[in-house]
């Protein structure tokens, strides 16, 4: 097992290097010279040239990349030229918001998707199954900005149960924090469950056809045990993949939802950085989000091994 973890960790190194190269290249390819952005349109060419030299922008791109990477390896992701905040600080301020949102959204998605998937697989082909599969397909095509607006309209405008926008840190007022989180998390969760449900449903239907399910029946096991242990456990691998990818995606991908609900998370930080052409923040955040995504997938790989002994023993 230790060897397994070490090997997977080693795989992370080239992936992270590739991610950093891509991030840097994309940020460098964005139109608009950073020096112009900082100095504004009244700047003289001499001032621009001087600043470019100071910031090292006149150096070749590979040299700039190596310099950037060198600083990152020392823990220095750079500093916003607008707010003076370091990337690290900006991100660590916002991460708790996005993290909370992502956890709640995923929990809601799982809480809806998993029971429905099991119920549908157990009665595959029934009217209930067809209805839920159809509903899931419909929900899959509802964009989050639409469901967000509908939820705001229903819960904030009509019923006046929950606030539409805003945020209070959990440490300040836990109840208010949760009230602010419900609608954004529900919006994302409603987008998550159809995928979870459809994948788990088809995996479970396949598992229920297996010989070992016939044997489990022939052993006289209770239907609940057959469903929840013998069929669900081997089917949960794809579920773990989906959940892992979703979580990774939500780390930085809740841009729309954070913007609609005015949550000060990573998504909002990214959007702000793009609007203000704050390239240092932008590339730092993208790199950290991508690294988070990669690490999330690493955790998923480890979970595979926990769930499937064949992977643990290097058979698959």
């Amino acid at each position: 097992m230790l060897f397994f973890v070490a090997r997977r960790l080693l795989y992370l190194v080239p992936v992270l290097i590739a991610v950093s190269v891509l991030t840097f290249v994309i940020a460098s390819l964005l139109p608009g010279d950073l020096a112009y952005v900082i100095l504004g349109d009244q700047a003289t060419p001499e001032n621009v040239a001087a600043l470019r030299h100071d910031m090292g922008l006149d150096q070749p791109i590979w040299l700039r990349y190596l310099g950037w990477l060198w600083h990152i390896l020392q823990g220095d992701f750079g500093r916003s030229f607008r707010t003076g905040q370091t990337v690290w600080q900006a991100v660590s301020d916002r991460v708790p918001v996005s993290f909370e949102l992502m956890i709640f959204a995923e929990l809601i998605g799982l809480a809806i998707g998993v029971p429905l998937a099991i119920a549908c697989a157990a009665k595959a082909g029934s009217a209930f199954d067809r209805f839920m599969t159809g509903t899931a397909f419909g929900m899959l095509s509802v964009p989050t900005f639409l469901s967000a607006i509908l939820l705001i309209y229903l819960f904030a405008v009509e019923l006046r149960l929950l606030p539409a926008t805003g945020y209070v840190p959990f440490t300040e007022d836990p109840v208010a924090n949760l009230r602010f989180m419900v609608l954004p998390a529900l919006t994302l969760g409603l987008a998550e469950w159809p995928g979870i449900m459809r994948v788990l449903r088809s995996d479970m239907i396949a598992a229920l056809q297996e010989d070992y399910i016939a044997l489990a029946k022939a052993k006289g096991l209770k239907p609940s045990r057959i469903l929840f242990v013998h069929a669900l456990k081997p089917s949960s691998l794809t579920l773990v993949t989906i959940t892992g990818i979703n979580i990774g995606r939500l780390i930085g991908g809740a841009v729309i939802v954070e913007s609609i609900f005015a949550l000060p998370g990573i998504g909002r930080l990214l959007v702000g950085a793009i609007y203000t052409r704050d390239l240092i923040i932008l590339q730092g955040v993208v790199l950290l989000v991508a690294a988070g995504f990669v690490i999330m997938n690493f955790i998923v790989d480890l979970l595979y091994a926990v769930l499937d002994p064949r992977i643990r023993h290097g058979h698959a």
Partner: protein
Amino acid sequence: MSGALLSVEDAVVDLPTPRGNLRAVDHVDLAVGAGKTLGIVGESGCGKTMLSRAVLQLLPKKARLSGRVMFDGQDLTTLSAEKLRKLRGRSLAVVFQDPMTSLNPVLTIGTQLIETIQEHLELDLAQARQRSTELLAAVGIPAPEQRLAQYPHQLSGGMRQRVAIAVALSCEPQLLIADEPTTALDVTIQAQILDLLAREQQRRHMAMIIITHDLGVVAGRTDEVAVMYAGRVVERAPTPALFKQMRMPYTEALLAALPKLDVPPHTPLPAISGRPPDPTRPLKGCSFSPRCRYSAGRCSTEKPRLSPAETLEHLYACFHPLAAGSGA
């Protein structure tokens, strides 16, 4: 046979397919007495496995079963799901063909044994573990204690089939159905597994049905043999009587298709030419007649009934049975 532990009476299994109705089991009558062994022999697709699934009530959802399956005085076809569940694994156990797929890959051997034991017997975890260890030892698995924590993929095919047998034996069933228990195994392992089954059957005095395509498997290991072809039983007899004098040409052809040691090397095997009939297109006459070298006259227009030969125990369905004394 009223004293039988299991009796299948006029069983018919129909499977709807896109090409029409497939009659997998066609009016089959069978019986096994307590502590007796029955061999069901036939080539692939002749309905052996469907028949065993019908006994276990594990037919595919779309399949329709008619007739009765009487087990220990109860008709399994009308039994409630809950009563059936209490019977399966407890009194009625099964070993499937392929141990690579019949054990759950993500559960340990121990879990798969203990869950069966705890489902049916009033034992606590420690006792169930103890019993599992004993069972693994009884089926010839070395270091049984350690095996409990292992997963199926860590065992060889033969070992896995031993585990599957241990699972089947775990609650001292009255009847064990072994559905091609050695087909997926290496030849060297086959005899070991068959001997193990025979030994445990004797020791526990349980009834057993061995399903196989290999007449050699049932010879000397069963009390009675039923030969199936195209969903029907075409010959049924006490094992010694059958091998002494088989009457149905299909049985003879099956036996002739077995490789023998006393034949010179490189002699072609006398395979049965042709293929079994399409089960969605039933023949009017004897199902074997298109492949039978004795076929003549009414063989292709009329179905022979399963009827007794010289003795009441020996039944066959043929208009032109092999003459007495011509057996292999």
